[in-house]
Every structure is written in structure tokens, then in C-alpha cells.
């Protein structure tokens, strides 16, 4: 029993409650308290990352012990993969909320903003920590309902329309997920992920479970905005306030979408060849189509949102390659390399896409527009924003020595070693098109001189600068994860627990 685990859910929920109550009476309580809560969670998650390693820890809610090795209570599990995603959620969450201190001043109802922000963090922490399917659903709903409200936070025409679209598609995804959970419970009579995987190994009814796998892929694919399900993402991510866009694009689609897909398909279902081919195909489609949709955009936040789809395609593609190799009984080291590339890119994407959305927010904060055609010449008046967005742009397009380069390199090497030459070629081409698209962003926003006289523009206030500088440092530091000594400590425990078919379930319910 690790007593730290429930704190990841309890602290943000209690924070949201206290902000709503005390924030009414005490001036400026909300912003500093929310930052404090998130800072505490970020420190906890880094501490857990440092101590977990190859072990995994378990928390049984209510202290319900298993009966005849069958788990009956609610389990919360923390293993190598969980702590990585927890770190992303809480560190990016802290930087976004610190950034909001200045940014959110122009909105009314700051209390509601910070309370919803804490609720969203609590929901996402719950999703990644939960050890059973139904709690994944409950926490997922907590985080997405607060994100519906946060997308509509500006309550103008665009925000409301985007939020409505997001709610209809998100609601559909929730029904599909609930339906899949019902079907799984019908057949296996259990909801614990480890227990389900044990039951699935003994009896096999392939056609039934194929249907369930498709439902799960559609449901969580809608939450993760993989390409045929992506229609809501550009609207929702571009309409939300910028710190929320950074959270949605940098964290939410990973924590409630990609994380759950990876966890369930590796640790719950037996990896099958037809599903893994389907997942790889969807990933390739997202990667290619997302970047082509991004090219023609002139609204910065829409451009960044389409790039999110494309970069998530890289993650899904790489994990899918790993699944194909495992299902065909290929070399396990190549499979591990492919999965490692995917997870590494997932971490990196949180850093650089979060930073890019914060940059977009700074530009919008100072000049009040998101249209690239109306900007220009900001490099002189906003040196910090310009420099950090330059770093993030290089990082997302895969230029060394930034983190994006290393993860894309690992993905391409894994694709070549697994003899998927076409996919490797596509990954390189998409990376080049991404570079072109971000050259356009840099040129129009920061260097191109427009006729307007922009003497009065000032750099953004300190909290916004602080978050952006720290994020750009992360873009440097995360590239260290590619080097053997550090990779073995941080990245490999996650890969081990995913690629080993019995390690996860044997840890939770014993042999």
C-alpha cells in the first residue's frame, strides 16, 4: 500500500472545493492556491518518478483485500508508465496555471476557472492511476466535463459552438466506452484490468472480443482525436483560453486517449495482429492527413491544433509498429524500441506543444489577434516569446539537439529495423512538411515586417515569461532521456511493463 497514490486525486479535488468556498471571501486566494496545489502535485509526481523505477505500488481503496486471488475492491496502480504520464500532467499543469495568473485577468469568474482547472487535473490523475475499467470511465467523465466548460469559458459565439460540437462527439465516445465496459463485464464478470487479462487468457471468443476492441478503439480514439474522429479537436483547442489549450493539446488527449489505448491494448487484451495493423494504419493516417490540414491554416491556434493530430499520429504509429512486431513474434528488442519511441514522443509532445500554445497565448495577449497575416515584426518587441517559440518550433520539426529530434529518430530507426520502410519514409516526409509549416509561423509572426507601427508592444508579464522559459528548458532537458544511462532508469520500466504480457497482471493479483 502506497499512501501517496490517493493524494493525486484527493488534493486537486479538495483544492477545487476550497477555491470555490474561500475564493469568494479572500482576494487573490484562487490563483496562488491553485498554483500551490499544482506545485505540490508536480513535486509529488517527480518524487514518485524517482522512487518507482521497476517496482509498482498498489492502493486498495477501502482496504478490500482480494478473495481467492480475485480482486473485489477498487485498485489504484502506480507503475513505470503511470508515473511518466503523471509527471506530464502535473508539471505541464503547474506551468499552465502559473501562466494563467496573468493571462486569465481579462476574464470574469476567475474562481470558476481555477476550480475547473483543478477538477480537470484530478480527473486526469484518476484516469492514469485507476486499475479498473469503470473508474477509468468515471474519472474520464470528470476531466472531460470540466474541459467542456473550460472550452466554453470565453462564452462568445465561437467558444460556445466549439464546446457544443465537442460535447456531442465526446458524449458519443462516452457511450461507446460504457457499452464496451458493459460487454466486457458481461463476459468476464470482473472489471479489474489485471483480472480481465487473466480471464481473457484462459477462454477465447475472438470475434466477440474483436468487437469490444473496436468499440474501445473508437471510444478512446474519439477522445484522442485520431484522424477519422478528429472533427472536434481544431475547434475546441483553438477556442479555449490559451493555458487550457496547452492543457488540452499537451495533456488531456494523451491522458484520457492515448494512455488508455496503450494500457488496455498491451496489458488487458492479448495483442492481436489485425488490431495492431488497424492501429498502425490509423496512426499513419493521422500523421499524414493532420500535417496537410495544418499547412493551409492562418489562425495560429488552429495550426497548432492540427499539428497535435499529426504528432499524436507519430505516437500511435510507433506503438502500433511495436504491437505488430509483438503479435508476429518478431524480435522483442525492436518492439521495445518502437514502443519506447512512441512513449518518448508522447512526453516530448507535451513539452513543445504546451510551450507553443503558451506562445500563441502571449501573442494573443499583447496584440489581440490570432491571425498570422496581421502579425509581424514581434521578434524585437517580444524577445522571450520569440526565442522560446523558436526553440519549440525547432523541437516539433525534429531539429537536433532538441527533444523532438531524438524521439523521431528512435521512431524512424525502429520502423526501419522492423522493415516498415514506407512508414519510415512517410515519417521523414511529414517531419519536413512540419518544418515548413513552422517556418511559416516563425516568419509571419516574428520576422515579417508589416506596415503597422508597433512601438507600444511590450513583453508579457513575469508569470507568463517564467512558464515559457521553464518549458523551453524542458525541451532541452528531455532530450537527455535518449541517452542510455538515463533512459534505463526512466523510460525502460514503462516499456518493460507494457511489452511483458504477464508482468502487469501478475504484479496486481499475484500468480
Amino acid at each position, binding site marked *: 500500500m502506497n499512501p501517496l497514490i490517493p493524494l493525486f486525486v484527493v488534493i486537486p479535488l479538495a483544492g477545487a472545493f476550497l477555491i470555490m468556498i474561500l475564493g469568494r471571501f479572500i482576494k487573490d486566494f484562487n490563483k496562488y492556491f491553485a498554483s500551490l496545489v499544482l506545485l505540490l502535485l508536480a513535486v509529488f509526481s517527480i518524487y514518485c518518478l524517482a522512487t518507482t523505477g521497476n517496482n509498482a505500488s498498489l492502493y486498495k481503496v477501502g482496504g478490500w483485500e482480494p478473495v481467492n486471488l480475485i480482486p473485489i475492491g477498487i485498485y489504484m496502480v502506480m507503475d513505470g508508465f503511470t508515473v511518466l504520464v503523471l509527471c506530464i500532467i502535473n508539471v505541464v499543469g503547474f506551468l499552465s496555471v502559473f501562466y494563467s495568473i496573468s493571462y486569465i485577468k481579462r476574464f470574469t469568474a476567475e474562481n470558476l476557472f481555477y476550480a475547473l482547472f483543478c477538477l480537470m487535473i484530478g480527473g486526469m490523475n484518476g484516469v492514469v492511476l485507476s486499475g479498473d475499467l*469503470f473508474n477509468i470511465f468515471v474519472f474520464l467523465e470528470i476531466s472531460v466535463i470540466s474541459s467542456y466548460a473550460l472550452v466554453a469559458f470565453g*462564452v462568445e459565439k465561437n467558444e460556445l459552438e466549439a464546446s457544443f460540437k465537442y460535447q456531442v462527439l465526446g458524449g458519443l465516445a462516452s457511450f461507446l466506452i460504457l457499452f464496451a465496459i458493459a460487454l466486457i463485464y458481461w463476459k468476464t464478470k470482473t472489471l479489474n484490468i489485471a483480472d480481465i487479462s487473466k480471464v481473457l487468457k484462459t477462454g477465447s471468443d475472438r470475434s466477440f472480443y474483436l468487437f469490444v476492441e473496436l468499440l474501445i478503439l473508437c471510444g478512446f480514439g474519439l477522445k484522442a482525436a485520431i484522424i477519422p474522429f478528429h472533427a472536434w479537436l481544431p475547434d475546441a483547442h483553438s477556442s479555449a483560453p490559451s493555458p487550457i489549450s496547452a492543457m488540452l493539446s499537451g495533456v488531456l488527449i494523451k491522458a484520457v486517449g492515448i494512455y488508455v489505448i496503450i494500457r488496455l491494448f498491451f496489458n488487458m487484451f492479448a495483442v492481436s495482429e489485425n488490431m495492431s495493423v488497424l492501429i498502425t494504419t490509423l496512426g499513419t493516417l493521422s500523421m499524414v492527413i493532420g500535417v496537410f490540414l495544418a499547412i*493551409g*491554416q492562418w489562425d495560429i491556434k488552429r495550426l497548432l491544433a492540427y499539428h497535435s493530430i499529426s504528432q499524436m499520429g507519430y505516437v500511435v504509429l510507433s506503438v502500433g509498429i511495436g504491437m505488430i512486431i509483438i503479435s508476429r513474434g518478431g524480435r522483442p528488442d525492436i518492439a521495445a524500441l518502437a514502443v519506447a519511441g512512441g512513449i518518448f514522443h508522447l512526453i516530448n509532445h507535451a513539452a513543445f506543444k504546451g510551450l507553443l500554445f503558451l506562445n500563441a497565448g502571449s501573442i494573443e495577449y499583447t496584440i489581440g489577434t490570432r491571425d498570422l497575416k496581421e502579425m509581424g515584426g514581434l521578434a524585437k518587441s517580444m524577445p522571450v516569446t520569440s526565442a522560446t517559440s523558436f526553440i519549440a518550433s525547432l523541437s516539433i520539426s525534429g531539429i537536433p539537439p532538441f527533444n523532438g529530434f531524438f524521439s523521431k529518430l528512435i521512431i524512424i530507426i525502429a520502423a526501419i529495423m522492423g522493415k516498415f520502410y514506407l512508414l519510415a519514409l512517410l515519417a521523414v516526409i511529414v517531419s519536413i512538411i512540419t518544418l515548413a509549416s513552422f517556418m511559416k509561423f516563425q516568419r509571419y509572426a516574428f520576422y515579417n515586417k508589416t506596415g503597422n507601427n508597433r512601438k507600444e508592444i511590450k513583453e508579457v508579464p513575469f508569470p507568463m515569461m517564467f512558464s515559457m522559459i521553464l518549458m523551453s528548458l524542458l525541451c532541452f532537458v528531455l532530450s537527455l532521456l535518449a541517452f542510455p544511462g538515463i533512459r534505463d532508469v526512466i523510460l525502460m520500466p514503462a516499456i518493460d511493463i507494457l511489452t511483458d504480457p504477464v508482468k502487469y497482471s501478475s504484479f496486481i493479483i499475484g500468480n
Partner: protein
Amino acid sequence: MIVYLLCFLLFLVGLYGVITRRNLVKIAISMSVMEFSTFLFFALIGYIDGGVAPIVDPADPVKTYVDPLPQALVLTAIVIGLATTAMMMAVIIRLYRKYGTFDIREIKSLRG
């Protein structure tokens, strides 16, 4: 078997409504219909023919009980569904104030 088919039919009715209706409130109602067909299915899988409510009676230990877990799960899901519906209605009311109409064909400023 027939109850499962009816349940699926209810889901299709909701899906038809979401796809074809032009009125925001009717879309929200169709979403609720879909939602409740899923809940109904969840409750049905816990039903055992001839079972009674799962209150253990020591005097009569051989009774058949229905599975109580899906009922508890559906209650949780209904509460979540309430929150989703309330959120959607709040957004619809705000949209009506901005546009003066519920017609989805006139609410389309986001493109591409």
C-alpha cells in the same frame, strides 16, 4: 434476446435523432435517449431469470440473486449523465442568447 434487440433499437433511435435533427434541444434529447439505452443494456446484463434482490437471508441460503454490481455502476453512470446533460443545456441556453435561434444550420462560424 428480444430485450437486447429493443435496447439496440433505442440506441439507433437516439443516433438517428443526433444525425438528422436541426434543433439543438432535440439533439440534446437524442443524446439522452442514446445514453439511457446504454444504461438499460448495462442494467440488463446483471439480471438473472428468477433472481431476487440481493439481500442475503441466512434462513434461506439457496436463493438465486440478481447481480447487484451493474445496478451500482448504472447509478453512478446516471449521475454522470445528469452532469453531461446539464452542461449541454447550459451551453445551448448561451447559444440561444447569442444567436436567437436553436437552428444548427445558422450556427456555423467555425469552418476548416
